[in-house]
């Protein structure tokens, strides 16, 4: 905690927030108000790309909180992200209305399956408020139930990580099946409207970007509050010496559970913001490799910091965007290499490196 305070005191935090707010204003302005002929114009593609990175930033922050501060390494955070995404995707599918390929009120994949009505679990998904609630509740309740059993049985470390990995894999297989009613391997796509606005319009894109940025800022402030409170110190104490914490009179279960559920909910919200911007959600988002990648973002950026994982998500995804265009088949090798190098030479990640520079 001391390191955190030293790294960015009140002025540092103010600077970070100002930078984020400036970005939040500048990107929509450059996309909407700056004429297309200008060098400062941002295309809808670029805005969407930035918005996607911000979503990843929220996920990385959630990962950094649970892993870096709570010592809970999840290799299944992609599941919570996808669940949020799927919940919001259901709403977007309902908003297509009769504009699908088959002109039916049902999504195309349901027509294809010869279904006549929506299954019961699609109930209410045409109401934005209900869906927004579910975006929080579905990942939150799943994380609560899973976490309650796992932490109560004192499953930790690599065993916990492996179970989360299995969980996301099992969910992926479930969502791949057509009869579960989530569009099988194609998932949801071809979205048309969100709250009455056309999804593909530049102004909608800019708006979604701004909302995502705001959510990231609020999430960052919430995490900062948690980490700087006594709760945060108990959490890091549980990470370092759980037995000692118990003999000090704390029950670690509610602490771990709270941070775990909060982290999962953040991922769900990020997923819900991701889907309308990227325009598709399918079960591959739940693949084990995706969840491992999230852990790599946090490791690259720096565990035990809040900004580090966000920066790590930016660095790795920028590298990914460029690399998968130039040498698509080698990306996974490079990702593995980055992870090995960071683990060996930069155990504190990029933030540790910045910290070292600052000291010398």
């Amino acid at each position, binding site marked *: 905690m001391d390191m955190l305070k030293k790294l960015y005191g009140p002025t540092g935090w103010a600077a970070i927030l100002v930078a984020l707010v400036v970005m939040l204003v500048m990107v929509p302005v450059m996309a909407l108000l700056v004429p297309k002929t200008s060098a400062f114009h941002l295309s809808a593609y670029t805005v969407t790309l930035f918005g996607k990175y911000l979503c990843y930033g929220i996920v990385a922050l959630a990962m950094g909180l649970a892993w870096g501060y709570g010592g809970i390494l999840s290799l299944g955070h992609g599941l919570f992200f996808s669940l949020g995404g799927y919940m919001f995707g259901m709403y977007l599918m309902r908003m297509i209305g009769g504009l699908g390929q088959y002109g039916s009120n049902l999504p195309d994949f349901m027509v294809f399956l010869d279904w006549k009505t929506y299954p019961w679990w699609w109930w209410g998904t045409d109401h934005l408020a209900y869906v927004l609630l579910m975006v929080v509740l579905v990942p939150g309740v799943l994380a609560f139930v899973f976490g309650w059993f796992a932490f109560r049985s004192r499953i930790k470390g690599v065993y916990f990580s492996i179970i989360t990995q299995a969980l996301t894999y099992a969910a992926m297989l479930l969502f791949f099946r057509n009869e579960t009613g989530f569009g099988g391997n194609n998932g949801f796509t071809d979205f048309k409207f969100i709250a009455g606005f056309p999804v593909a319009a530049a102004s909608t894109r800019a708006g979604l970007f701004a909302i995502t940025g705001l959510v990231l800022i609020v999430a960052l402030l919430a995490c900062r509050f948690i980490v700087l409170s006594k*709760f945060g110190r108990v959490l890091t104490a549980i990470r370092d010496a759980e037995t000692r914490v118990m003999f000090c009179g704390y029950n670690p279960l509610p602490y771990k559970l709270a941070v775990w559920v909060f982290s999962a909910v953040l991922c769900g919200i990020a997923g819900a913001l991701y889907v309308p911007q990227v325009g598709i959600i399918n079960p591959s988002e739940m693949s084990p490799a995706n969840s491992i990648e999230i852990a790599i973002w946090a490791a690259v950026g720096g565990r035990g910091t809040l900004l580090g994982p966000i920066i790590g998500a930016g660095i790795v995804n920028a590298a990914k965007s460029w690399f998968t265009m130039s040498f698509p088949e080698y990306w996974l090798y490079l990702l593995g290499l980055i992870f090995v190098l960071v683990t060996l030479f930069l155990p504190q990640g990029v933030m540790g490196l910045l910290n070292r520079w600052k000291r010398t």
Partner: protein
Amino acid sequence: MMSISATANSEERSISGAHVLIPGELDLSHGVALYLDAINVSFDGFKAINNLSLTIDAGELRCIIGPNGAGKTTMMDVITGKTRPDSGTAFFGQTFDLTRMREAQIAHAGIGRKFQKPTVFEQHSVFDNLELALKADKSIWGSLFSRRNHEQTERIEELMELIRLQDFCHRPAGLLAHGQKQWLEIGMLLAQEPKLLLLDEPVAGMTDEETERTAELFISLAGKHSLVVVEHDMEFVNSIARKVTVLHEGSVLAEGSMSEVQNDARVIEVYLGR
């Protein structure tokens, strides 16, 4: 109506001399802090604790010695809820059945434990270590929203002075010397304001001077607190002990003053004589 009849009832009881037990509140009125009776613990057939019975009086300072594998640490595990006994009774005061409580509940009830290997929060400063141990609301909401008050800060400063770490207030505990870590852990124990302190090899790795100061501290704590000290350092035991219990193969072999124990033929055979 209910409250009136309840008051009348309790008055009646106290008049008749019956003792009212209030669950959830420590009751040392019979003068017994810790009561272990016929405790058995076995691991894969190995009897770590064998029909162990032991009573610690309120305010007593008791030393427990015994060769390696005598069951000293397992006994502490039973008392603090880390290990469940296969059979037997373990009570803290009159009201707390330790075999039915979890670690955190037991700690909350007033039993503090120092481990054999000093266990402090290495990444946290000395100050934070003590603050985390301090008797306070330890629920998640309490930790999230409560702020440290003036008395708590004063209490921490007092403790830092007592354990002579006031100059290391902001130093991460991981960077302290071994003896200092032992002291910090003792300080954390005191911060919990426990009624019963279990101290597993508290002076291991301490200098002679530190050991001497620890002895003074323990003697000053006895009376207000009950202390159970497990130690191998016989000189240290001799300097603080009034009553010594010798454990051997999971049960009590002998009990008495240091000189009585030292002259016991069986003790000499299994332990001191070797």
